[in-house]
């Protein structure tokens, strides 16, 4: 026979785990940069407000229904003195009641839901439209003024930002939790999404539609800059890099000799106009590399150039670039060091 005294505290513990922890956790974006509970834009706040309304209703329903269940189990458990319980078959009034009340609760949830759907849908006319193209497994970013970059998206803090979203290959999904809800990107379509930032800062995002072997590595960073910083950054994207010297100059040459120019563009170099891979202008100023998976340090960049497959399984560069597929053309340690110096000089 089940030990009934065990049911009470254990069930309560279960209830606690399920209900309280979400409330205790989830708010600190410093520890959890992808949290959805620290909205920092108008759109994200609208979503969160709606969610909190639904969430507390759900918590209330949970407490009421689970308590009824628990109460029934305790109060009506069989005792040796029990006779045959009354063989009740139903009660029409109760059926109607517990049909109508949930229906009303759902209507209460539906109305703000629909309002929010339409509020979020249309991109405001004055939005600053940035073009995003998803690739396996990186993000191509093009500004209305023509600058092209990858994976690290800067936006000004003083206006509404909009995105047009397309894919170059398979389904992806564009998501920066603190700023907006996700938008899937379907081949053959152009999607839009928008938000107005509330504060400056660095926000993390990730692709959230399984897009192949390195889906987990297709991350991004969205930097909300002051208008001045933003202007400087976009100007930097278009300007030629400072003249390379020393090891960086060797890297400048290696970038051409080793075939990198076939796939990558760098502003100010007529020989580097490849569009197969990410645009590497201003690479030295980027916070991360390999689509926001690693901090942009000398050590990490060296590891990446030495063995990109190890960091991002299946990546196109490791599969197609001659330096990785042809043992005779392999990069030497010196090559790598030179390239690292060069790329980090692109500021």
């Amino acid at each position, binding site marked *: 026979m089940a030990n009934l005294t065990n049911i009470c505290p254990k069930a309560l513990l279960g209830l606690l785990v399920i209900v309280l922890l*979400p409330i205790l956790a989830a708010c600190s974006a410093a520890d959890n*940069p992808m949290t959805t509970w620290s909205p920092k834009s108008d759109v994200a706040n609208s979503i969160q407000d709606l969610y909190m309304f639904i969430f507390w209703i759900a918590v209330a329903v949970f407490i009421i229904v689970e308590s009824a*269940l628990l109460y029934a*189990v305790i109060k009506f458990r*069989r005792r040796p003195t029990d006779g045959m*319980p009354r063989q009740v078959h139903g009660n029409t009034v109760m*059926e109607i009641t517990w049909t109508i009340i949930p229906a009303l609760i759902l209507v209460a949830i*539906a109305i703000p839901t629909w309002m929010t759907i339409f509020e979020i849908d249309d991109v405001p006319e004055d939005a600053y439209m940035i073009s995003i193209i998803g690739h396996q497994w990186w993000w191509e970013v093009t500004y209305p003024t023509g600058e092209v970059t990858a994976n690290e998206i800067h936006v000004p803090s003083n206006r509404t930002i909009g995105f047009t979203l397309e894919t170059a290959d398979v*389904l992806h999904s564009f998501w920066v939790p603190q700023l907006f809800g996700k938008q899937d990107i*379907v081949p053959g379509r152009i999607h839009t999404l928008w938000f107005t930032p509330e504060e400056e800062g660095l926000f993390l995002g990730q692709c959230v539609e399984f897009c192949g072997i390195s889906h987990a590595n297709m991350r991004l960073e969205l930097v909300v800059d002051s208008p001045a910083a933003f202007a400087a950054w976009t100007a930097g994207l278009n300007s030629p890099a400072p003249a390379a010297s020393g090891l960086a100059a060797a890297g400048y040459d290696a970038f051409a000799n080793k075939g990198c120019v076939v796939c990558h563009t760098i502003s100010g170099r007529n020989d580097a106009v490849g569009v197969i891979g990410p645009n590497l202008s201003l690479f030295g100023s980027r916070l991360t590399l390999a689509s926001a998976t690693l901090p942009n340090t000398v050590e990490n960049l060296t590891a990446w150039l030495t063995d990109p497959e190890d960091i991002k399984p299946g990546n196109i560069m490791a599969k197609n670039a001659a330096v990785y597929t042809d043992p005779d053309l392999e990069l030497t340690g010196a090559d790598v060091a030179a390239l690292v110096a060069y790329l980090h000089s692109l500021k």
Partner: protein
Amino acid sequence: MASAVGANGAAGHAPSVDGVWSWVTTVDHKRIGVLYGVTAILFFMLGGAEALLIRLQLAQADNNLISAGFFSQLFTMHALTMVFLAIMPLGAAFFNFLIPLQIGARDVAFPRLNAFSYWLFLFGGILLNTSFIFGGAPDAGWFAYANLTSTTYSPGNAMDFFTLGLLVLGVSSLAAALNFVVTILNMRAPGMTLMRMPVFTWMALVVSFLLVFALPILTVGLVELLFWRFFDMPFFSAAEGGDPLLWQHIFWLFGHPEVYILILPAMGIVSEILPTFSRKPLFGYTAVVFAGVAIAFLGFAVWAHHMFTVGLGPVAVAAFSASTMIIAVPTGIKIFNWIATMWGGSLDLRTPMLFSLGFLALFIVGGLSGVMHASPPVDTQHSDTYFVVAHLHYVLFGGSIFGLMAGIYYWFPKLTGRMLGEGFGVFHFWLMFIGMNLTFGPMHIVGILGMPRRIYTYSESSGWENLNRLETLGALILAVSIIVFLTNVIRSLRNGEIAGDDPWDARTLEWSISSPPPVYNFAVIPVVYSKEPFWDHKYPEFAHEEPPKNAVAPVAEDPASIHMPNPSYWPIIVAFGAALAAGLALIDPWYAAIGGVITLLGVYGWVFEPAGPEEHH
């Protein structure tokens, strides 16, 4: 007053019941139920092993226990295995074993078609899993969104194993569904109107109709995917005028009814156990039945809630949000009626009841998180994160698996004549309840914290690691609970307490015959006058409906003259031919003809198989 339920007579003649061959050729629904059940549990363990590997990889940030490529295969096959090879066949096991017993019939309408369904399921499951050794298992997720599934982005034949395997499994399920529809509509005992059927049988009927209407849609999608990959027919290729979203629509038009196919059997089981263990009838029988039917209908109107983030446009999104919220109403009706069944009862808290209570408690959680997803703006933050993974596991594990476990503990005595050990059962329950909450509870949180689905790794700075560790611990506890369960089964088969006909003082017809039942089930086909014929027979003073004054007596039969359908080897041959055709098509579509020939010859053999000894009037 004529007895509504007869007693067992002498044993009727039966075919040889020993040996492998008797199992290979069996057409007895009870044996086929056992075959389904055992096979499903084995596949469940396979799917669980896949889950454990996933959890071990995710227990640590930047882990490299499992490679990215193999991880994709694991999460894909874990889902495919659990959905198609574990939960659906476990439901089929119960349908097979129970439906004739609950409606007072001696077998299903088409015993050989029944056997064929099982063998095709087994071969289809094997076919799907051989992909692991032939170049890799399917790895594009269980819902296999185009165009990742094209030959460009999924070279090799992993996705062909997916389409061909699922096509085979679909035929198996469809055949079974057709059989159950005819059985339930056509073979009920005299007096058993539809509104006197046990709720489990009602849910089986609803599930069977869902399969009949949903499977062909999936079949078309799979055929289009197959033709795209094999013959370059550009159904899902945007550049050539096709549409990747067509796959999603087709898949979810099947996929959403599919989730009701997965949960309704468990709901039916719980609807039987709660009354027995409360010593009260089911509260609101009519409401529970109609709610089940309503869920099935509405289930075809909500599919695009799986597509809220693909860009359908605000009007479509709002419409599907509305239909999704509406479906919460009949679901709630069932839950309230179940609690009301217990209310004022005399509750027996043995293992079947524990699992039923667990089902209720956990399904409520899953249902509530589902309502959250029904709000599209909120869903743009939840979709494709672990919050959805939490939701689906609360309804599928907490719901379906707990319900099916309840059913196993409840009907094991009827099947085998022995009780499952109660001590082990309670231990199994608590381990599973704790393990389940520890594994899937934190997923709500880690999903809120932004952890996407289907990622093989994450960095330490994400803040997800501790919760993932907890989830992996929970998964290990779940694994132990399964070992406890299997131990209980094996021990009980050997030494379990003898059950007798009616160990639970139950209410429906299957408890009126011996445990295990004779091969012909009922010596005398009963005449039924109420929803709970056996209960009313035992406790006429508590019966809800009086038998009419002009009650018809059951037709007396000499058990020795009851002829059961003969065993047959044609079902396994036809199943083998079909599965072989699918398997050979992987090498070259033309080779499928070899399997096709075997199938065709097998069908002729089946159709022209001599009947048993002829009946004479």
